[in-house]
């Protein structure tokens, strides 16, 4: 018997497919999320919209909060660490969280290196904006990739751009001859063996979810139709007028993402969505998706 094998790490990511992972800041939120049909919750102290508004250094959450959330729900619990902060990851592993998100939403701790994720028993999810970044993270041991979007904006445009970019770059790799793959790896700044895998299989070697900017059931279904295998929703639920109703509607939208009749019915009368931000109104330095190397 082997615990924490690569297959069990990817296995959990496989089980989360076709589902919604919701950001929660209290045990009460976590219970609302579970009752709405979330497949997992992301435990954090502030949702991205508040991190953006309040500023300051954003760090791993208080272990007490994470433990409260873990004991409040039966679904998997994820939590975030700063990019490169492997000690925060050691702490989360000790708490027994089910997935660690090495996240650009928190303030990076290392401007050159990400965490060497093979050192950990807990699987990691990491963000990407393009194929090269996705493959570098997988090369470091990430068992799940998500496009970053632009967290805390309620604006889906970056998530769409990034997922389309990853898909386009995958298709481009598939058209190459074997003799062209080393040059492609050089251009993508990605490990050669992973470039070879994508060339051969036409997909990432780990599941690929979407995050950042989902505010409506239609946003969630859009990402699924574009090829995301699940959807993370951050500020979009608990910063809206009726979190429970919106959470349920987004869950239905991810299951029935190809069924416009269901999408129409669940989109009805959801109350106020979170207030969105236009991406070009964000100062370059405040862009979270630019974090990660």
């Amino acid at each position, binding site marked *: *018997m*082997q*615990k*924490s*094998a690569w*297959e*069990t790490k*990817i*296995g*959990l990511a*496989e*089980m*989360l*497919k*076709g*589902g919604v992972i919701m950001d929660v800041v209290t045990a009460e939120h976590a219970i609302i999320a*579970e*009752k*709405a*049909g*979330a*497949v*997992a919750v992301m435990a954090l102290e502030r949702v991205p919209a508040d991190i953006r508004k309040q500023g300051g250094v954003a760090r791993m959450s208080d272990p007490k909060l994470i433990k409260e959330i873990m004991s409040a729900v*039966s*679904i*998997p619990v994820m939590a975030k660490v700063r990019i490169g902060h492997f000690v925060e990851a050691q702490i989360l*592993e000790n708490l*027994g*969280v*089910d*997935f660690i998100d090495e996240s650009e939403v928190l303030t990076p701790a290392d401007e050159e290196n990400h965490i060497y994720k093979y050192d950990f*028993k*807990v*699987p990691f999810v990491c963000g990407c904006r393009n194929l090269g970044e996705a493959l570098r993270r997988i090369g470091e041991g990430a068992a799940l990739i998500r496009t970053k979007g632009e967290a805390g904006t309620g604006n889906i445009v970056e998530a769409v751009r990034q997922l389309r970019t990853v898909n386009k770059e995958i298709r481009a790799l598939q058209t190459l001859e074997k003799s062209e793959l080393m040059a492609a790896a050089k251009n993508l700044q990605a490990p050669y063996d992973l470039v070879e895998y994508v060339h051969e299989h036409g997909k990432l070697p780990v599941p690929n979810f979407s995050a950042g900017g989902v505010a409506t059931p239609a946003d969630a279904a859009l990402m699924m139709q574009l090829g995301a295998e699940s959807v993370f929703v951050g500020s979009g639920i608990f910063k809206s007028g009726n979190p429970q109703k919106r959470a*349920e509607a987004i*869950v*239905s939208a*991810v*299951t*029935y993402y190809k*069924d416009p009749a*269901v999408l129409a019915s669940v989109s009805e009368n959801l109350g106020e969505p979170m207030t969105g931000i236009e991406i070009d109104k964000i100062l370059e330095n405040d862009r979270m998706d630019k974090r990660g190397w």
Partner: protein
Amino acid sequence: MTYSKIIGVLAIQGAYFKHQKAVEKLGYKTLLVRNKQELDSVNSLIIPGGESTAMIIILKKHGMWDELKSFCKSYPVFGTCAGTILLAKKSHGLECFGEDNTFSVMDIEVVRNSYGRQVDSFKTDLEASISGSVKTIPAIFIRAPQVIGFDEQKVKVLSYCEGSPVLLQQNNCLACTFHPELTDSLDIHDYFCKL
């Protein structure tokens, strides 16, 4: 006209594509099932792993619960992980859904997340008695449930892991607490498709 069997895979949430792929490799036609119309077009159904709570909520909300419950009573069904939880007569950890919280077609008693959290997920090799012989099968357990009781008159155990039943059959219902769809082994899918 030749009759060709269609194997359905419940596609509410979870590892449904992996099951679909496994069954297609065996040469069967498949259909992902999300609504009544799709359920009416299949001859048997796989209920994949994922989160049982999420599946129950979505099925009940979209009017699929009773449909599936009656389907499972009449046609071959194969549940893995969360699927096993749904097929069981009694599943611990679903109390918040009231009495009607499983399809209740197998006389087994199951506990959710029984091995612990994700760090306790594991892979191993098992001996399974299927299709008249004993086969070695790779098995991946993810936050897996455990079968803590079953009716010995009605339920046949096809495989054990460290003393605990992990692959069980009752008439044309098959339940498995691990994930054959995450490995290259097609033995269990092959067995189910022939039921």
